[in-house]
């Protein structure tokens, strides 16, 4: 005799003794099962990725650079991807990390700009507003344990003030006169700091371009997930501008002389 | 649980004007349980060299005897007194011998080394301190050496209190305050302290009362 009325009329659950009161009876669960529940990937990993982004402050505003590669693991999968993106009239984003997440962010921000335009209140979102929105978006997603797997630089120039900020998948934010993401933060950041820190208001556009060019070259030499094809973006009083892709002059003749490292010298 | 934190204990050494000081707590514990409040960690090596051995208590006893042996062998063979610098290298090589199964002890050496200009009539000495990690990497500091479970706290207080060229009594006060306040914030050190101040003509040894909690 099954003493539990909730089980009457249902198939018996043989894993428990129906004549005992312990363990507490379980009603058989006949609700439809979602066979794909285990397959939902919330805590993802980045798939198609971009590497470093660099940015510096200079006399007229902000200069930013990122190469055109989107890697699939170690495969150089897409070699004509733009990782700099203009938002509104005063801001450029540059992103490393997962490219599909970045394109989702582009879409979100573009929708936001349209929404703001439709309000027609004569107000335009500037770099600090976009940065705040983006960092709240990133922090909100990390708090849902479903992050947007990027590190992003936000550069801007509005009302005579330049802006440069960083935000990543954890929602961590900071500002400085030179910023770099990924490998750039280890390889290029020291070069950028040496060239820029303390003389932000003296650096001309040509000089800034030279600083960025040497840093991108060093990154191409040392970062195996980089490409010798990159774009520079500037944000000045004249507005945001992303330039045509360019490449660095490289010199590989020294490679002839390398005979391996450590014990392998033959 | 780290073996370095099994028995607890801390040692500090400081340089003063023509003097050095070395001090330690007196606790011996088994993890959080205190066993003894009279466990010696600092030992005289010669009249002018003291060594502090914070770490695993059994290795403290072993190393103390090993150093006694090697110092005696040196003195007999060389027929002269051992200098602190030499002893520091002796400590280092003894520890490095056991590079891949180390003694769990981070020794601190404090001593007065004889200057070349020193004569038996007017002896002249230079303060010397040094520390090593558990495999004998030497650290010759000009100011102070800290070791043991309260080392981080000792660093903070010593960096705030120490100044160059302290006279013996001021050095005593500085090292005592540094040690007591650091071990009071450490769960594995404390239960009293002992301080030795080495000067050219005498060694001042004082036992300090500390918090017993």
């Amino acid at each position, binding site marked *: 005799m099954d003493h539990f009325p909730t089980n009457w009329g249902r198939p018996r659950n043989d894993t428990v003794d129906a004549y005992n009161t312990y363990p507490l009876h379980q009603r058989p669960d006949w609700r439809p099962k979602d066979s794909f529940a285990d397959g939902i990937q919330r805590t993802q990993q980045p798939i198609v990725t971009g590497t470093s982004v660099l940015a510096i402050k200079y006399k007229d505003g902000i200069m930013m650079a990122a190469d055109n590669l989107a890697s699939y693991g170690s495969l150089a999968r897409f070699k004509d991807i733009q990782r700099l993106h203009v938002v509104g009239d005063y801001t450029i984003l540059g992103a490393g990390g997962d490219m599909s997440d970045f394109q989702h962010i582009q879409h979100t921000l573009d929708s936001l700009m349209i929404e703001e335009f439709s309000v027609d209140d004569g107000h335009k979102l500037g770099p600090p507003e976009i940065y705040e929105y983006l960092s709240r978006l990133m922090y909100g997603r*990390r708090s849902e*344990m479903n992050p947007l797997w990027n590190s992003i630089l936000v550069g801007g120039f509005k009302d005579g003030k330049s802006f440069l900020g960083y935000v990543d998948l954890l929602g961590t934010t900071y*500002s400085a006169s030179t910023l770099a993401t990924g490998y750039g933060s280890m390889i290029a950041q020291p070069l950028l700091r040496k060239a820029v820190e303390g003389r932000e208001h003296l650096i001309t556009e040509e000089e800034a371009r030279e600083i960025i060019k040497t840093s991108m070259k060093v990154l191409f030499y040392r970062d195996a997930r980089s490409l010798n094809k990159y774009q520079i973006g500037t944000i000045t009083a004249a507005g945001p501008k992303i330039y045509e892709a360019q490449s660095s002059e490289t010199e590989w003749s020294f490679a002839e002389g390398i005979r391996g490292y450590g014990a392998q010298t033959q | 649980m780290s073996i370095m934190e099994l028995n607890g204990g801390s040692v500090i050494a400081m340089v003063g004007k023509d003097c050095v000081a070395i001090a330690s707590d007196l606790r011996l514990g088994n993890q959080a349980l205190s066993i003894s409040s009279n466990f010696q960690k600092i030992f005289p090596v010669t009249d002018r060299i003291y060594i502090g051995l914070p770490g695993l208590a059994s290795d403290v006893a072993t190393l103390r005897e090993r150093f006694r042996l090697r110092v005696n062998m040196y003195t007999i063979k060389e027929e002269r007194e051992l200098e602190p610098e030499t002893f520091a290298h002796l400590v280092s090589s003894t520890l490095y011998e056991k590079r891949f199964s180390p003694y769990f002890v981070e020794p601190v050496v404090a001593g007065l080394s004889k200057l070349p200009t020193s004569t038996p009539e007017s002896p002249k000495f230079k303060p010397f301190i040094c520390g090593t990690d558990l495999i004998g990497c030497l650290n010759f500091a000009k100011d102070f050496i800290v070791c043991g479970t309260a080392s981080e706290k000792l660093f903070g*207080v010593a960096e705030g209190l120490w100044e160059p060229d302290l006279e013996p009594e001021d050095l005593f006060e500085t090292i*005592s*305050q540094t040690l007591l*306040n650091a071990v009071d914030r450490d769960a594995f050190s404390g239960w009293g302290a002992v301080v030795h101040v080495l000067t050219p003509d005498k060694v001042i040894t004082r036992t300090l009362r500390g918090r017993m909690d």
Partner: protein
Amino acid sequence: MPQQRQFNPYSENGGTILAIAGADFAVVAGDTRQSEGYSIQTRYAPKVFRLTDKAVLAVNGFAADGNILVKTVKQRLEWYRHAHAKDMPLRAIARLIQTILYAKRFFPYYVYNILGGIEEDGTGAVYSFDPVGSYEREACRAAGAAQALVQPFLDNQIYFKNQKPKPGQSHPTHLPLDHVLSLVIDSFTSATERHIEVGDGLEIYVVLARGHSAQGLSNIPGAQEISQTDEGERVFVVRRDLKKD
């Protein structure tokens, strides 16, 4: 099942904060370096924030959580102003911070907080919190990367621990402002010397109760007044350089 790497929603951004209460003032300080691992992210990211004309909050730990927490607290204080037409008193801010922190008990803000300011009775106060909201009022507190270095030094120099007063005398219960400021500066230069995550810059907020002269600030160069109430509470900030290596 695909190989899964668990996403870690936390990070540690280094730095150290410190606060000391005087009889009728409070000092709250923090370094300005923000780091992750061995990388310095920026040399200037403030960790100390003015909340009202008599309350200052220092946050240390995971920077993203810290910034959000400060924004939340500031927003709640603004709502309080709209509802009550006055600033929230210090002890109420302390309780507010507790409830905000405890509300996230099972997904905590990974942040250590120290609140400093002037109590309604005009005394200087410091409140310190753990990440899930447990708090107490104290005379001084250090937190963050160099807490272990600074706190025992403060025990010795503020509470006079292990020091015996001269016969017939007693230790002062509160120290004068100039003395407190020099202890704060010494604490941070010491921490900078021995801890890699501390350095670059130092920001010291000083909250003075009504009637307290800014005397102690005179020998500190670069003290800048940032607010003053009708009743006479004043908030100052002192910015100094720390070593950048």
